[in-house]
C-alpha cells in the first residue's frame, strides 16, 4: 500500500491555485497526468510530482453550439486539446480567445475554469 504521489483531488486543488502538476515515473522518467497507479510505459509504481509550466499549443479544437444541461448558458464555447510544452496533453475550456482566431498550433496558457462551483482545466491567451 502506497499513498498516491498526487491524487485527483489534490491535482484540482493545486490547479485551482494556478499550478498544474504532472507525475514523473521514477524508473523510466515518462510523464503522466495523475491519477495513475502504474507507469503505462514501464509498469513501475513509483511517481514523483513535477510542476508544469502551463504553456502549450492547441492540438485540436471545437466550438460547442449544442450544449448539455448546465453548460447551455455558455454556448457557444470552445474546447481544445492542448499539447503542453513538457509533452503531456490536457483537454480544457478556452477563455478570452475570439472564436474566429482559433487555430491548431495557437499558443495558449493554463488558467483555472470554474463552473457550477467546480474547478476544471481552462486555457487563455499565451
Amino acid at each position, binding site marked *: 500500500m502506497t499513498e498516491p504521489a498526487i491524487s485527483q483531488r489534490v491535482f484540482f486543488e493545486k490547479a485551482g491555485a494556478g499550478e498544474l502538476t504532472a507525475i514523473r515515473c521514477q524508473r523510466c522518467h515518462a510523464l503522466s497526468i495523475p491519477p495513475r497507479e502504474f507507469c503505462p510505459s514501464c509498469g513501475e509504481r513509483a511517481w514523483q510530482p513535477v510542476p508544469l509550466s502551463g504553456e502549450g499549443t492547441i492540438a485540436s479544437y471545437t466550438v460547442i*453550439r449544442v*450544449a448539455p444541461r448546465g*453548460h447551455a448558458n455558455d454556448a457557444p464555447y470552445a474546447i481544445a486539446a492542448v499539447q503542453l510544452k513538457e509533452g503531456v496533453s*490536457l483537454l480544457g475550456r478556452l477563455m478570452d480567445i475570439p472564436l474566429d482566431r482559433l487555430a491548431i498550433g495557437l499558443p495558449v496558457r493554463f488558467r483555472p475554469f470554474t463552473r457550477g462551483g467546480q474547478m476544471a482545466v481552462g486555457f487563455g491567451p499565451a
Partner: protein
Amino acid sequence: MRRVAVIGVGVTKFGRHERSSAELFAEAAGDALVDAGLPPSAVQALYYGNVVGSETEKQLHTGPQAASVLGIPTVPTTRFETACASSHAAFRHAVMEIGAGVSDVVLVGGAERVLNVTTEESTEYFAYASDARWEQTLGLTFPGVFALVARAHMAKYGTTEAQMAAVAVKNHKHGIHNPKAQFQKAITLEQVLKSPMVADPLKLYDCCPFTDGGAAVVLASEEVARKARRPIWVLASAAASDWMLIGDKRDLSRVPATERAAASAYQQAGLGPQDVDVVELHDCFTIAEIVATEGLGLFEPGTGGIAAEKGWTSVGGKMPVNPSGGLKAKGHPIGATGAAQIAEIVTQLRDDAGPRQVDGARVGLTHTLGGNTATVLVSLFGRD
C-alpha cells in the same frame, strides 16, 4: 473454441416509440427467435446492451427486466455497458460462452429509449460516457469529441467538410431502401453543408440522430446451427480499448482501438481487409466513418474522405459501407446498435437485403465504437 453461428435476427423500426426499451427489445427478440425457428424455451442465456436506461427510464437491472417482458424470466442475464458498443460487447461474450461449450443457444441484443427526454438532457446523458471530473466539467459533448477528431484529420490529411458531407449523403441514400431506418429520405451535399453547426466543424447532418429502438440476434453452437435454415458463421469477434481521457490520446486523427480490434479480428479469422465484401461500421458522425474505414484497413490513412466522395463506399462501389443506412440514416439506439449492425450483415450474407443487397457478399464485418473512442468491437462473419 467451438464454431458459433448467428441463426436468427430481429430489429424493430428505428425512430420514436411510445414503448419501454424492454418492450422494444422483446419485439426484436421475438422476431429473432421466429427467424431462428426456435421456441423461447431454447434460450439458455441473455446478454443485453442498454446504456442510459438509468437516466431516461430511471431503470437499472434491465437484463432480467428484458427477459421477463420477453417471457423467459428464468434464464441468466447480464447487462453490458460499453457506451455505444454495448450490444456488440454482449455479442462477443456470448460467442465466447458458446465457443467454450457452456451454452448452445444464447440470445444477444439491446434496446434504448431516449426520445422521451429533451435534446439537452440526452446530450448530457450521452456525455456521461466521457470522464466526469476531467471532461464533463468542460461541457464536452459527443459531437465535440468527434469534432476534435475531425479538426485533427483535416489538419493532417486535408480532409474536407464536403468529403464528410458525402458520407451523410451516401448513408441517407442507402437508408431509403431500409424499411427499419429512422430516415428513409435522400439528402443533398448542400443540405448537409448548410445545416446548423453543432460542434464545429460538425453540422447537424454530420451527426446521427437520437433514436429509440431494439435489436436482437440468436447465437448457436455448430451442432444447433446445422439444423437451422440459414446459419451465418462468426469468423471472429474482437475487442480493444484505449485511453479514456482525450488528453491522453496521442493522435486525434486516428482511433487506435479500431486498429487493434481489427488486427485481432483479422488474425482470428485468418483474413485481411481485402477479403471483406460488406461492412457495417460506426458512423455516429461522418468523420467517424472516414476514420473507421482507415482504421479497419479498408483504405489508406487519409483517404477515407476521398473514398466516400468517389463513391467507393456506396452499394455498387468497390467497398460498400453501411448498406443499412448506418447510424446516420438507420438511427442509433445506442444499446441496440451493435446487434442491429450484426443483423444487417447477417441479412446481407443471406442475400436477403433486397434493393440494398451487396451482390455476392460472402464475408462481412461489423465495427462498433464506444463513446469517446475508448472502446471498439470488430467482428467478422461468413456464409457456407
